[in-house]
């Protein structure tokens, strides 16, 4: 089989020979090991290896993207020819822009740990310790998945952009259950083993589980809500997605028309980082070969920029922000600036509220307006007059993201990296306190 560089050259030359004008080829070698466990025992171990070739081609201002995971000579030849032929039968795009001209210098992000890349049995022993730690901390059963991955990629374009990137990642997603309805979530994710703390995550999950046993009654109404980083990340990833210029242009972003507007509180600053230490989404170049970088999406509450590729940038009269996505520019790693609250201080600032430690199933009634609801899961606690009173369960938060951004009352100093099953874009965020969130439950 060809190596990644050879694949890029083969596909690019083949596409040009078939009549393409612009060509961008991204070849990636992805490997993943996963150990899943539930009820304190391993359920399955997995190993996935996948070489994919993502290609963008233009011809006579017509544009097409393709993805193939047949990296053989014959497979790539067939794929490339089919792609160029299909491109030729499309209508020209009025938005067509040529690929940006390189060559470029790329910054390395150092998010590669050879121990993660090469130790295929690392996970099984770690899972054993995770379960033991959680049980020791009071849980009765633990479930989760421990995943390590490595990605090597190579990019080559007709704009003379060429670069290589490699990264590793390791993520523990663990859920602990205690008696009488208690459950807790723990998470540790990092690019290097040095930043990975699985036993802390297991302990956190178990402690939450124990503390949330025997949840008590609560009333529907308006609450101040403390979102731990896991939950804040779930909301922030939607803010990141809404900052894509494609989403703005397609009318489905609640940040449409908000450029330069104060759309959040002064304490809210959000960045997209192409390369971030321990940022699992890091890559040195985007799909057009443009170097990734730091982009300020929100600065002290003001929307500073959308995320662009070359095509959207031209339409908005901006320059690419290095976030291609040929069709849909996207964030790489979202980072919320730290606040100035300590955890206890934030708690004391709540007269009548709840702490939500985990959530899922965030769904929008009106995506453009950012109106949605989401379901807290695992440990949640009622706060009265600055003190945790008792655990609660069965909550639903119903709100709009624009309203929430304007009602952030505080952010903690401490931040955490979050990426797991419900948070696809890696987010580094503090806990966030939001005032006056509607909390509901099923009608009797």
């Amino acid at each position, binding site marked *: 089989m060809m190596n990644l560089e050879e694949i890029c050259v083969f596909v690019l030359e083949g596409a040009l020979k078939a009549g393409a004008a612009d060509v961008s080829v991204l070849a990636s070698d992805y490997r993943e090991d*996963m150990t*899943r466990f*539930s*009820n304190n025992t*391993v*359920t*399955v*171990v*997995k*190993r*996935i*290896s*996948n070489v*994919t070739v993502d290609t*963008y081609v233009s011809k006579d201002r017509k*544009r097409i*993207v*393709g*993805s*193939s*995971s*047949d*990296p*053989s000579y014959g497979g790539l030849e067939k*794929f490339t020819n089919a792609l160029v032929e*299909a*491109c030729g039968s*499309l209508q020209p*795009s*009025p938005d067509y822009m040529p690929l940006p001209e390189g060559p470029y210098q790329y910054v390395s992000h150092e998010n590669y740990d050879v121990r993660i890349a090469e130790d*295929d*049995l690392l996970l*099984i022993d770690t*899972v054993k310790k995770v379960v033991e730690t959680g049980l020791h901390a009071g849980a009765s059963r633990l*479930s*989760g*998945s421990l995943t390590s991955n490595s990605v090597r990629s190579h990019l080559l374009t007709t704009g003379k952009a060429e670069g290589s990137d490699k990264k590793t990642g390791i993520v523990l*997603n663990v859920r602990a*259950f205690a008696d009488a309805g208690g459950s807790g979530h723990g998470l540790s994710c990092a690019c290097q083993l040095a930043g990975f703390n699985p036993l802390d995550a297991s302990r956190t999950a178990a402690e939450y589980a124990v503390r949330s046993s025997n949840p008590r009654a609560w009333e529907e109404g308006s609450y101040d809500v403390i979102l731990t980083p896991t939950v804040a990340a779930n909301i922030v990833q939607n803010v990141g997605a809404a900052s894509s210029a494609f989403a703005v242009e*397609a*009318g*489905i972003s609640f940040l449409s028309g908000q450029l330069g507007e104060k759309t959040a509180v002064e304490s809210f600053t959000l960045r997209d980082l192409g390369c971030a230490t321990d940022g699992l989404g890091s890559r040195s170049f985007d799909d057009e070969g443009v170097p990734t970088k730091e982009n300020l999406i929100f600065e002290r509450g003001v929307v500073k920029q959308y995320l662009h590729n070359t095509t959207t940038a031209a339409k908005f009269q901006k320059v690419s922000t290095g976030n291609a996505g040929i*069709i849909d520019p996207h964030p790489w790693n979202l980072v919320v600036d730290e606040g100035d609250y300590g955890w206890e201080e934030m708690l004391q600032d709540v007269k009548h509220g709840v702490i939500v430690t985990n959530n*899922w199933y965030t*769904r*929008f*009634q*009106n*995506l*453009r*307006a950012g109106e949605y*609801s989401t*379901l807290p*899961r695992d440990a949640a606690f009622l706060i009265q007059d600055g003190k945790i009173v008792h655990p609660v369960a069965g909550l*639903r938060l119903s709100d709009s993201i624009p309203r929430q951004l304007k009602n952030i009352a505080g952010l903690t100093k401490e931040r955490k990296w979050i990426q797991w*099953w419900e948070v696809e874009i890696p987010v580094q965020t503090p806990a966030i306190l939001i005032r006056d969130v509607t909390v*509901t439950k*099923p*009608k*009797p």
Partner: protein
Amino acid sequence: MSSDLPAFAVQVACDLGAEFAEARLHENRETACLLRDGEPEPAAIISSRGLGVRILCKGALSFAATNDLSRDSIRILCKDAVRAAEASSVILNKRIEFCEQKGVKTSWRAEERKNIENASVEDLMRILWELDKTLRHDYDGITFTNRLLTISTMLEMKTYVNSDGAQIESRVPRIQYSSYLTTPFEGKTFTVTIPPGYSQLGGSGGWETVERLNLQEYVPQEAKILAAVIKNTSKPPAGVVDVVLGPEVAGIVAHESAGHPGEADRIQGREAAQAGESYLKPTDLGLRIGSDQAFVSDDPTIGGSMGFYLYDDEGVPARKRKLIEAGVVSEFLQNRATAREFGLDSSNSASRSVAFDREPIIRMANTFVEPGDYSFEELLEDVKIGVYIKSFMEWNIDDRRFNERYVGLEAYLIEDGQLKGLIRDPILEITTIKFWSSLDARGRDLTFNAAMCGKGDPMQAAPVWTGGPHIRLRGVGIGAR
């Protein structure tokens, strides 16, 4: 697709000590077109092809996948899979075993009158152009200023071999359409989808499926209704009322609160840290959870459906599963491992994988409320005050599948058995037991919507149908935003 490679992989795995081995050569091809506000975005051609191998060794389960289909690579893959299983077996609390299943040699395919591979990007774009033209109309003061339309053809081909002697080839083409429409109205901007609820119109079959979807009639008709919905400001009645739900809502409820909680792997806790568990326990077969009108089934064998198959991804012949019968939990969705745990002779063919690099797990196929014998008018006729929720946008359910919410999109007030006009965003927030216990009548109609159901780690989005007739609930609480 040749069975040589999967057969080779199974042989290698068994020679290395696997007590059971299966291999699936799995190919997916998709062509997708996207039209934004009448302008073409890049089309997309996506293909994936590779081999997934699953083995049982010393009581442990291991899955490995690669798209390097050389024999050397497959040997390494199997060796790694066996080694990983052996390593994890020493920390197992409980052996994993499969129930018996005699291997079958066969091939099957979804009905395909016009080869899906002959549908070109031009064919797809033509459909989107025509639809966009109709969506640019003025709908009584509403103009959809932003329109994001997408249509795709998909082809899934598998060759499955296992050490029990199964050798099964399959081919399933599919088509699906979805769209986002945005419009400003009186100072606010609304995004809705057609079909509503972020779902799709779709089914399995060849290019002839696109005729069956009848997009040219359905899409503008729906756009007209949604324009009226957006303009309406009437609130729903507060309090406890009777509720009639359209098939789209009945279908999603069936999927979320009867299908998902009935997945045996979820009941056993295998998905606890991801998609959650279930309010049902392993001993809950025979438990009453609803009225004697509650009938929910899941059936992979429905011709033309998104979830269509005739053999599952463990080689088990597909059949209809009756999940809830007359309000009683009748059957869970099983694979060979859970069937063994439950002491069953066979799984009920619920094992699916969406790609070569995804482990087969328990999935739904086409989940629906069974039709009854009421006409729509009969469902309305003795409702003094109520709400008819025909479609929804926002929905969610907790991770035990008990606390669920559906926010209506197209919805009407019912007074004295008559529909009296649109109402905005009625919220049905209810428990699963309350929902199914309040069901007192089912229509004789039956329609389906397509959807992509997410489960598993790593995530797998499985094509499914959700459906049902119109149904009626008595005396449930309705809220408003």
